[in-house]
């Protein structure tokens, strides 16, 4: 059996806001196998970024982790102290590329300085080899003219370049697991294709595990081995990429794939599913998808469906499956 690098169990996260508690995650369950690319998809606001940030314990101040476990190997990340997270986990075990590349680089430091922080901590190279390592990190993500680029400041770079610098910086940490939150959004299509090639290379050469958050089903089909589909703070379905397109079971997954196929490849088309994303302050009772589900039955509005195994590597949360 393949080794499981990350296992999230019954994860619950809420945010305190003036309008009340936002139940952003309500029992998220997923497993990421070592050496695989694992996609995490769902409409905007369903909790993808919150899931990623919770793994690194880098949530906003008003967040509360209400329950659950995040197993990384045999460590429960939620039980570690902040110091242990800092020393043992962040960077050298798990790194994260955040959704907004524009604000993820410090405007007052050069690219070189910011990558060097990673290189100096994790590479074990003598100081005089650092420059070379920074150069290689930038070249790995196919940034042109890296020798010059590293002396620039973030504001002198385009959005796409910043995104690639971010990736280079996080890879320079040499993590086992990389959480990539929509890393291709700021890239134009041709660079996206190039970038996906870069990731594929990394996958083959570094045995990197990636939790890949995206709206883009095309990227999922090109890169990912497994997929978790989220809806309103819960997992609707965990399945293989093949099943996602050939054998989706959850009504939401089905809608998602079919509203997209043949029309456009991005998940913006999701909004075409009738009804809107529920607000998470007062989420619908029972199955959170029931107001929009055409297959809903009486129990759906009363009880939340548990995730159950349909087949190996395929779990679904729906009363009708």
């Amino acid at each position, binding site marked *: 059996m393949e080794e499981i690098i990350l296992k999230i169990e019954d994860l619950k996260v809420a945010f305190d806001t003036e309008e009340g508690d936002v139940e952003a995650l309500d029992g998220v369950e997923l497993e990421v196998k070592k050496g695989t690319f694992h996609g995490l998809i769902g409409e905007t606001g369903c909790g993808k970024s919150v899931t990623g*940030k919770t793994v*690194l314990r*880098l949530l*906003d*101040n008003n967040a509360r982790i209400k329950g659950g476990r995040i197993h990384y190997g045999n460590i429960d990340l939620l039980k570690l102290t*902040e110091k242990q997270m*800092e*020393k043992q*986990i*962040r*960077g*050298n075990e798990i*790194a*994260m590329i*955040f959704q*907004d590349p*524009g*604000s*993820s*680089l*410090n*405007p*007052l*430091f050069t690219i070189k300085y*910011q990558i060097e*922080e*990673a290189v100096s*901590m*994790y590479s074990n190279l003598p100081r005089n080899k650092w420059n070379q390592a920074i150069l290689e990190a930038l070249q790995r993500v196919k940034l042109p003219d890296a020798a010059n680029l590293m002396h620039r*400041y973030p*504001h*002198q770079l385009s959005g796409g370049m910043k995104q690639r610098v*971010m990736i280079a*910086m*996080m890879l320079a*940490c040499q993590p086992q697991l990389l959480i990539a939150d929509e890393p291709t959004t700021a890239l134009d299509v041709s660079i996206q294709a190039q970038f996906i090639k870069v990731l594929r290379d990394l996958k083959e050469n570094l045995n990197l595990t990636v939790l890949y958050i995206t709206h883009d089903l095309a990227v999922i089909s090109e890169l990912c081995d497994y997929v978790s589909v989220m809806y309103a703070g819960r997992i609707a379905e965990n399945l293989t990429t093949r099943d996602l397109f050939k054998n989706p079971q959850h009504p939401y997954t089905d809608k998602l794939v079919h509203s997209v196929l043949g029309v456009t490849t991005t998940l913006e088309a999701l909004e075409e599913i009738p009804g809107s994303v529920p607000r998470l302050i007062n989420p619908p009772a029972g199955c959170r998808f029931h107001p929009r589900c055409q297959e809903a039955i009486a129990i759906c509005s009363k009880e939340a469906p548990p995730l159950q195994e349909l087949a190996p590597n395929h779990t679904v949360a729906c009363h009708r499956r």
Partner: protein
Amino acid sequence: MGKSGYVVRRLLRTIPIVIGVTLVTFLILHFTPGDPVRIMLGPYATQENIAILKEQYGLDHPLHIQYITWLGNILQGEFGTSIRYNRPVLELVQDRVGITLMLTLSGLFISVTLGSVLGIFAALRQNSWLDYLCTFQAMFWISIPGFWLAIIFLYIFGLQLRWVPIGGLTGFSSVILPALVIGLQEEAWFARPMRAEMLGVLNEGYISAARAKGVKYIRVVGIHALRNVMIPMITMLALRLPWVIAGSVVVEVVFAWGGMGSLLVNSVLARDFPVVQGILLIIAITVVLANLLADLVYSLIDPRIRVEGGKK
């Protein structure tokens, strides 16, 4: 636009400010009630004597001529002669400027370090008792008038506890109290913005990104965040400088240091206008230069200012 271009432009922009400053300094005294010559000569002066003295100091000319003459002299480093002491103004100032400078700088140092440290801790422990304590103590010090605080401190630490000398400038221990009075009074001006700016910056994406790399939190705050709050803090520093100088003038008088403060106060009372004008002008120019320096420091801290200087 290169960096030198930015510097030159910034320098050129201070010229009108400096002219304005000289104009205001010059006019202030001429519109203050009280004729210096009459005060000098006493109540029994004859018209004749008054006229002679007025001529001697150029006070019989129209105002604009007086201004131009005065400005011309100042440009040659000639600040005039004190009416009261009958000595060159610059000489009087030179004797005392060191004392005032020391008090201003040590007061600034205390207020900036204390304010920054408290502000950072308040931000890191937002809404904790430490945070509230910081707010409370800042409000406390800032709401007491400076001279009053100086007197209370003198009474407690000088008279009762005898930890420090009661007055005069007699070595390091005598500097502590006056500097502390200024430091405490000004500290709130740095603690509050430091807290607010820090809270803002700590929410930035690049802070999370640095932490995601595994950079130690102390380094994230001390390097990544601190550098980003430096610009508003330096602005505040330049903004508060005149107030700190004003504060040290008052405090220094209370502590009987005989610096520029006492000289200024006595000269105002005696309508010794060349001295008052000279001191005001020196202080004003210092403030203008400090702002200029602050602007130049911004461009060292923030690369975006260096490049966009031309557009701003």
